[in-house]
């Protein structure tokens, strides 16, 4: 008799510490629904746009297509391959000004295939390509500060285990995914960089190292050798797929999808009505005064996105959103409620960019 019933195991297992917290999951994931981050950072948006526009002027011009920021021109070849394994994510949030420090805010995704995709905040996504050597140099640069840890793979298994297996209490265990190179190291790095701006400063004696790292990550082309690059030249990142999301805006209640579709130009409504849709909830507002926002999102190709964009641009009553690729529009019968439809590109690891976040 081994007493393996649920009630006995329930008594044996440690209690659950704390309650479930889905918002925390979303914030950790970097999903766009972590709207607190949007709120916190929104005040710095205009400054950053001015500060970085000159450096990426050429790319910005490419991306400005019918007043949209971030929609690739028709016929663009999508970045290849369509999917990619994320190796490193870093989010540069400039700290206090320092001598010779002139870096802008950016988010950067580095993939195992060498792609370095950067979002220089509202200047469109750009892409460069590293060689394996370049990828390793970038990782080494991050880790050399000592501020970020990378889990070391376990020691090689002794015989008779097969390669990739590890030794457990019961002999050889099945291979387990290792954090390197299969797992990204985005969380420790992103958080550490980010916390510098919200009060949790690094130790003073480490600050110069982080400034140096910040400068190097902002301009990897300035220090990585030629052998580190397959493509050092910055070019546009062209996604294979966009997410088109639409929903009601605060301060009123969410609007049903069916009603939203009737408010769109017929071409847009018909196109989106035929698409699979996922429903997303997020928060909008300021601490202590958040509203729940419900968005309905569908995947579209670049060509379909252009059809939608053309229809919205031609329709009356659709006001372009400033920093995001999208439009606001009114809802008849309500004096206050507005709705919005916006476009966001997919990144190779499957995340939908939040262009007004971070």
């Amino acid at each position, binding site marked *: 008799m081994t007493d393996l019933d649920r009630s006995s195991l329930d008594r*044996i297992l440690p209690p659950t510490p704390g309650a479930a917290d889905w918002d925390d999951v979303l914030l950790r994931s970097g999903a766009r629904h972590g709207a607190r981050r949007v709120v916190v950072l929104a005040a710095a948006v205009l400054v950053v746009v001015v500060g970085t526009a000159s450096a990426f002027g050429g790319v910005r011009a490419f991306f400005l297509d019918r007043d949209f920021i971030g929609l690739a021109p028709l016929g663009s070849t999508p970045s290849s391959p369509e999917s990619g394994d994320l190796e490193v994510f870093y989010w540069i949030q400039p700290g206090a000004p320092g001598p010779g420090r002139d870096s802008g805010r950016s988010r950067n995704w580095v993939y195992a295939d060498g792609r370095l995709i950067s979002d220089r905040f509202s200047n469109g996504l750009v892409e460069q390509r590293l060689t394996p050597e370049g990828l390793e140099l970038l990782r080494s640069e991050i880790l050399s500060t000592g501020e970020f840890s990378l889990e070391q793979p376990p020691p090689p298994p002794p015989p008779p285990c097969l390669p990739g297996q590890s030794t457990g209490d019961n002999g050889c265990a099945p291979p387990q995914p290792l954090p390197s190179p299969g797992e990204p190291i985005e969380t420790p790095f992103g958080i550490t960089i980010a916390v510098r701006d919200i009060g949790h400063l690094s130790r003073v004696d480490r600050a110069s190292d982080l400034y140096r790292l910040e400068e190097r990550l902002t301009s990897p082309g300035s220090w990585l050798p030629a052998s580190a690059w397959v493509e050092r030249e910055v070019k546009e990142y062209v996604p294979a797929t966009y997410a088109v999301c639409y929903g009601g805006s605060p301060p009123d209640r969410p609007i049903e999808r069916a009603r939203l579709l009737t408010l769109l130009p017929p071409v847009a409504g018909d196109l989106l009505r035929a698409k699979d849709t996922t429903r997303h909830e997020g928060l909008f507002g300021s601490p202590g005064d958040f509203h729940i926002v419900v968005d309905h999102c569908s995947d579209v190709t670049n060509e379909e996105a252009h059809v939608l964009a053309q229809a919205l641009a031609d329709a009356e009553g659709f006001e372009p959103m400033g920093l995001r690729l999208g439009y606001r529009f009114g809802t008849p019968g309500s004096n206050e409620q507005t709705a919005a439809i916006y476009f966001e590109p997919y990144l190779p690891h499957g995340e939908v960019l939040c262009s007004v976040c971070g």
Partner: protein
Amino acid sequence: MKGSRGASLDELEALYRSRFEVFARVAASVTGDSERARDAVQEAFATAVRKRRSFRGDGPLEAWVWRIVLNAARLDLRRALPVAEYDEPAATNGHPERDAELRVALARLPEQQRTAVFLRYYADLDYAAIAEALGIHIGTVAATLNSAHTTLRTRLEEVRT
């Protein structure tokens, strides 16, 4: 992305809200620490959110998430100082002595056997889902559970005689 069923954010949220406690407590059997187990579950679901489009739909979504949760818990265990047993106080109702014996016997099982036991008898997963969660062949699940039963029975008989 293409060719995958993908998981929606709603599906993941529903799974999280309905099964959080089960995930956290089974993860604690791996990490040996409730707080770290909770952190592993949070990180695992964050990973699942990021990678939800890569869910192929070959098996249940829960089994796919279990695999991520267990990997996160094991990763946490490798980062932390060694923990031989999860030694947090158990509830005192029920059969305290018998529970204590079972707890010690379970703690001494190999991690894979112990996790298989919790997945089968506490999380109520079927063999296919356990196989997916542990990354092993379905036929190995039965063997793993049989080994766990045999070991537990032997140890508990030793204690009680």
